[in-house]
């Protein structure tokens, strides 16, 4: 893999400390434009903490996070989404009372140039923008074969479709980097194969960088170009799937000595 001069996301020596526990310790992580990267590790290795660190839920105790050239340390989660990092959730978090269409529409919110006064006056500019949002959402749903369900309540969809809808919703924020938090959790083997195709398709179609946090080895090994392995908050490996598979430290972390 040819490293581009400037990575899209760069974690420099990030540490998160909860009291005496270092959940993540001096973590260096880089993701380049258009890269599909996996982040794995045993339970409690700090994967979710790393995830929350990138999305702005936690602030690093020390270290720096740079996205697209600027530091995003201390930014609120919605501001970080605004800069181009979107995420899905391990336990699906769709807006339960909204339709499939409205779930995606809500994610277009931050790109609106109109505010409250436009919404009340409903002039030509407002209508134009609203029509554009409607079109964008319609296209996204069409791509992911959810358009026929657009008026259905989001939580009444089958599990696999809900996962798909979460990805669509994240894409509506127009991200440069998509973070997927254990998307294969609770899926059967057939659904996992579908999910792998979906992730690959999304990444290619939208030219995104993807960071995948996942337990399921087959999924991660199957689609990721590069894999970072965490254990006890420390990064123990960062390499291609083949190299990681035979890395002695990784084998030790997963299987014990």
């Amino acid at each position: 893999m040819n490293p581009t001069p400037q990575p899209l996301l760069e974690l420099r020596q990030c540490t998160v400390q909860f009291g005496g526990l270092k959940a993540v310790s001096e973590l260096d992580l880089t993701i380049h434009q258009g890269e599909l990267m996996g982040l794995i590790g045993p339970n409690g290795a700090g994967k979710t903490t790393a995830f929350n660190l990138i999305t702005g839920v936690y602030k690093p105790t020390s270290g720096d996070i740079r996205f697209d050239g600027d530091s995003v340390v201390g930014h609120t989660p919605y501001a970080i989404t605004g800069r181009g990092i979107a995420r899905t959730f391990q336990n699906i978090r769709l807006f339960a009372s909204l339709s499939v269409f409205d779930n995606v529409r809500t994610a277009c919110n931050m790109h609106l140039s109109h505010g409250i006064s436009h919404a009340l006056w409903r002039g030509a500019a407002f209508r134009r923008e609203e029509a554009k949002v409607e079109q964008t959402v319609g296209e996204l749903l069409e791509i992911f074969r959810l358009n026929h369900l657009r008026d259905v309540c989001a939580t009444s969809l089958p599990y696999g479709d809900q996962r798909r809808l979460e990805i669509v919703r994240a894409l509506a924020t127009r991200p440069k980097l998509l973070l997927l938090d254990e998307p294969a959790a609770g899926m059967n083997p057939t659904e996992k194969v579908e999910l792998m195709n979906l992730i690959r398709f999304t990444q290619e179609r939208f030219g995104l960088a993807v960071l995948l946090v996942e337990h399921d080895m087959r999924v991660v090994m199957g689609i990721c170009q590069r894999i970072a392995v965490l254990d006890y908050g420390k990064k123990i490996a960062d390499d291609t799937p083949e190299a990681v598979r035979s890395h002695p430290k990784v084998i030790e972390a997963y299987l014990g000595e």
Partner: protein
Amino acid sequence: MNWKLPKTWLIAAITLFAIASHFEKSIDPYYFDILISIGINILLGVGLNLVNGYTGQFSLGHAGFMAVGAYTAASMTIHLGPWMAQWTGGDAAPFLCALIVGGLAAAVTGLAVGIPSLRLKGDYLAIVTLGFGEIIRVVFQSMESVGGPRGLAVPTQPSHYLFWTFSSAALCVYIIVLLVNSTYGRGFLAVRDDEIAAEAMGINTTKYKVLAFVIGAFFAGVAGGLYAHFKQFITPEGFNFLRSVDIVVIVILGGMGNTPGVIAAAILLTILPEGLRAFAAWDALPDRIAEIIRNRMILYSLLLVVLMLLRPQGLFAGSGGIARRLRKKGAGAP
């Protein structure tokens, strides 16, 4: 969706109220009182519905904002009213100014209360807003310049009261319906459904919560101004905790996040106590039953309990989102 439609409705409604207002003198004062109370309750209910229903923030201090609006509007009429009436040659302009200033004062109070308290959620937010509501009431109670506990008399009641009340209510409904049906306004619903997900989708949840609070407070302030000029006498006791509860009941009975339902509930809950009064005075009723009904608040409360048991999702909510959500929550509770 046809965007022109709501505007047409608003203009039609205001025209209708303007015409109807010319005949308000021929309405029996008792019924007129009920009618105006309905309008005021619609304003309060629909405004609070934006906070409690659409945005999912449980506020229990709405009467406090009503008090701010009532006292501000009343003070304006008392001190500036005669002077302004001379300039404009009528009571309409000073009254309109008083209502708007009352609403703005309440909105500013809403902002001041909302920013610190909206960090909290659920029961904690309810208690904090309750506390603020009581603080506001006590402040007015100890302000001698507005009569303190003795209350404040407003010298005049403007003409065409029906028009003013119901046009304000129509405007309030119009604004809130338009707001929540725009992409921007979907943010309120997103905040209610899942704050963490909303934040991750780029929605500034704090801004939305405070905005809902401020808009709700504004309309409560307008309602307060209308109330003060209609009753022509206000006391701090009139804006106590129980008044806040009345408004919350309107919202819950109407269905959280269901504007038509809340309007219906505002009408029903204003008429119901008066209807029971008439029912208790009915001759054909056996004495023993009449005795129970004479204490009509017992029956009123009982009816609320029955309504809540039969339609926990609100009067008009069909398979609406919030109803499903509440059911789901209930089923999942330990």
